[in-house]
């Protein structure tokens, strides 16, 4: 079975435990205005302008984003770093885009990895049908799930989609074998207030599935140069500064509530 992947990154150290290979699946239903990988949003194979500099001279050419690849070929690449996973208790992380947008491809690769004894993680927005979400949650060792805001309208404004599906999916989880890591990207103007973060905290306290860890991701503007290469304009909503002032506060809020918190992924 083939799917569309836009990158496989090896020795990835911020996408789950240990040394991992991260497989980026193309296409995403959300349009977060701060997205660091805007080239991954559209489904299928698309184009991006690429500048190549050699001895100070630059040329610009269109390059494909995404390629069609078989599940087996992806897994073969993943297996190349088996020793690193063994030495570090690492594995593979499927990210995106939104990996749940290619569910059969994803599920097939998860199955193949487990047959090879490779630890799997899926990095998702949670925006998928209940059926797909549940099947993936059952097929992976770990879920890295983004919580942006609990506020429906704000979520719509920030991502182009309502968060009802995401919240309901999260609440539906109740699987003793699943490691759940919640990732909270701090977005200025969206969720960087105490009220917003407290609401997210309450949500986490209300679900049945135990939360292994909460990752607080400080805001940064990485990837903004890509918008131009895609012929897009960066969102006017994007603030100019890198660090969110209340990262420490956010960490201590979740810490005090008894969660294991980590800054960054």
């Amino acid at each position, binding site marked *: 079975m083939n799917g569309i992947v836009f990158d496989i*990154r*090896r*020795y*990835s*150290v*911020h996408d789950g435990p*240990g*040394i991992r290979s991260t497989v980026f699946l193309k296409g995403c239903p959300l349009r977060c205005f701060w997205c660091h990988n805007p080239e991954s949003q559209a489904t299928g194979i698309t184009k991006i302008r690429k500048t*190549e500099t*050699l*001895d100070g*001279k630059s*040329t610009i050419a269109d390059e494909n984003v995404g390629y069609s690849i078989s599940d087996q070929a992806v897994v073969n690449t993943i297996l*190349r*770093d088996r*020793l*690193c996973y*063994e*030495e*570090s208790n*690492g594995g593979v992380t499927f990210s995106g885009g939104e990996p749940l947008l290619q569910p059969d491809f994803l599920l097939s690769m998860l199955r193949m990895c487990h047959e090879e004894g490779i630890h799997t993680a899926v990095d998702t927005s949670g925006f998928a049908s209940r059926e797909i979400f549940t099947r993936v949650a059952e097929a992976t060792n770990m879920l890295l799930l983004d919580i942006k805001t609990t506020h429906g309208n704000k979520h719509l404004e920030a991502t182009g989609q309502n968060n009802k599906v995401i919240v309901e999916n999260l609440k539906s989880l109740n699987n003793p074998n699943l490691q759940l890591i919640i990732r909270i990207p701090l977005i200025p103007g969206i969720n960087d207030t105490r009220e917003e973060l407290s609401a997210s905290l309450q949500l986490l306290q209300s679900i049945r599935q135990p939360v292994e860890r909460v990752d607080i991701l400080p805001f940064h503007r990485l990837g903004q140069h890509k918008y131009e290469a895609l012929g897009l304009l960066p969102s006017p909503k994007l603030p100019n500064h890198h660090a969110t002032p209340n990262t420490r506060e956010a960490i201590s809020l979740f810490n005090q509530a008894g969660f294991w918190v980590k800054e960054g992924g």
Partner: protein
Amino acid sequence: MITSRVEKLRQQSLQAENRISAERALLVTDFYKSKTAVGQPAPVQRGHCLLHIFQHKSICINPGELIVGERGPAPKATPTYPEVTLHSLHDLEVLHNRPKVSFKSDESVRQAYRDVVIPFWEGKTHRDRMMNRMTPEWKKAYAAGIFTEFQEQRAPGHTVLGNKMWNKGMLDLLNDIEESRRCLDYHNDTSISIKLDELEGMELAAQALIKLADRHADELDRLAEASADSQRKIELQQMAAICRKVPARAPETLHEALQHYWFIHLGVITELNPWDSFNPGRLDQHLLPFYQRDLAEGRLDREQARELLHCFWIKFNNHPAPPKIGVTALESNTYTDFALINLGGVKTDGSDAVNELTYLLLEVIQEMRLLQPSSMVQISKKNPDRLIHKTLDITRTGFGQPSLFNTDAIVQELMRQGKSPEDARHGGASGCVESGAFGTEAYILTGYFNLTKIFEITLHNGFDKRTGQQAGIASGDLSTLDTFDRLMKAFKEQVNYFVDMKIKGNNLIEGLFATHLPAPFLSLLIDDCIANARDYNAGGARYNTSYLQGVGLGSLTDSLTAIKLHVYDRKTLTLESMVKALDNNFADYEELRRMLVFKTPKWGNDDDTADNHAVEIFNIFFNAVDGRPSPRGATYRINMLPTTCHIYFGQVTGATPDGRLAGTPLSEGISPVQGADQHGPSAVVRSAAKIDHIKTGGTLLNQKFTPSFFDDPESYKKLTALIRSYFRMDGHHIQFNVVSADTLRDARQHPEKYRDLIVRVAGYSDYFNDLGEDLQEEIIRRTEHHGD
């Protein structure tokens, strides 16, 4: 904690200027003019020569120091070795004035050279003898930059002290010599007279070192007498007592052991100018009994031990490598002398060797932050991760030391070469990355071998464009190279031709050293020279190896991949047009060059399309060299390391099919071409492990990380996992440069702000400011790996 005494000594060492000292040259000349020298067999002559130097050289005792002895009259006053190579007045001037690593000489040095040294030695040096014997073919290849010759200006060395000398003094060795003499077979042995000469030379050399120590004791007594500082007076008296005991007798305390070694070190580097100076090897193993005994008997505490070790470290830094002349200045534009301290690894019984001193010595390395001695940590699967973490603590500070070696690979390499398990486990790496059995092996590096240049010559049917000469054989013009296999066959013929030539040359040089410049002092130290009554330079050691060092693996791999893909498989262009583009240095071929650089698989990305060519090149080189015998009884082997020779080899090599421009550096060690690895460090180590490291005597892999990579404990674990993975795949060595490119760029703008900035160059570290601009540029370019 660094005491104020140590800080003063350290500053003195850092600030001392490299100077040429004519003292040794004058003493050696003086000796060779004397009656004692005339008509003596070479080993006896050399023994007397060392005795003469040690009887007359000036004694230098620096204020406050606890370990004494300088090779020259002062720290960094560097002697010359006119019997090996003779500096002209012009050479002295170049060394004096050159912007990088200058060696100052004053009028007295120039006068000594003009009036005494040059008139006596002109035409009579080892280098003259050697150059007179080399064939025109050898000279053509040498001029073309196919290979370099290590023993052209420096003596063979490449060895490390083993266990023996920590338990024996010179007087014990005199007994061993007597015993060896007793065992000679006067009835059947046809070389009896040569052996007697050798043993006599060794005897003289042992006495020479005792003489040197005695003269230090006398001077220390004199200083003690004159000292107004009552505490220093006691120290000086104690040091005098130590110098009267060692190296004549075996040391019993840590202080004695360090002083004992240091005299031995001076003996080796004064007798001749052997490559890689010399080094104490497995220091945490050797010093442990002395340290533990001192602690148990209340002679010193951990802090006092630390101070002694600091003082010991500074002695190494006072001794830059002796300056060379001509082409070799380019081959290795560095003047550190490659004393590589080994820590960690396994004991001779194979068990984990890490001990409390291992960690204390790591602290000493971190505190001293000196160029010399250099340091490495051996990592066996039996060593704890803590050892790696403590090492990364130092690596992350951007100091470039210690580098990491795979003990289990080294042991396998040495055993493949025929060492016993015990001798192999008592080994390690010295110089840059070279494996050796410490105390029992002469593993002599003979020269770098420019694999990429040989490919260039293959594409020109043996002709070297740069020198305008037919340097190689006629292996077929382009029209005959109509398949990739035929191209590789032609390349292989050229490699075999040049390896053969190189080895012939080396065998000859080896004979010159054995005949004219034996090393009776070094022979005392390395088993079984005394028992065999045979010189180190003549094959007296238990194990004898000669290495040829392949350079340019990454550049050549990418070149072959490009030609295979674009010329033979896709037929995008003909071989003729490729060669034309190369001959034009890609002028008017920009599009082709972009395709070669950006659209061609590269070594270092775990892509078999490229990596298979690396394996093929490796095997051709290995098969051409490995197992060939030398007259002294050594076996030729390969290793893959460049020091800084990839810069020189790059300068003499035209544009290459990987898109590299003429004259620019080749890839170094087995590292990917600078910037070609784009799939992270795990892909790099997977690629690197595809060649069979166990069949080498060392490989060098460089990885650069920015400091941010070491920010949290998690990243330590992940780097440790990377190292362990590479070592599970038999990787020999990996080193980390931890600096940001911005820091380095700033260092180029403001060198004055970065005088202490040390970077790992290639198996060793050097001051960034002392590196040539091209090397600085290259270090900036090397891919920075960010795990994100």
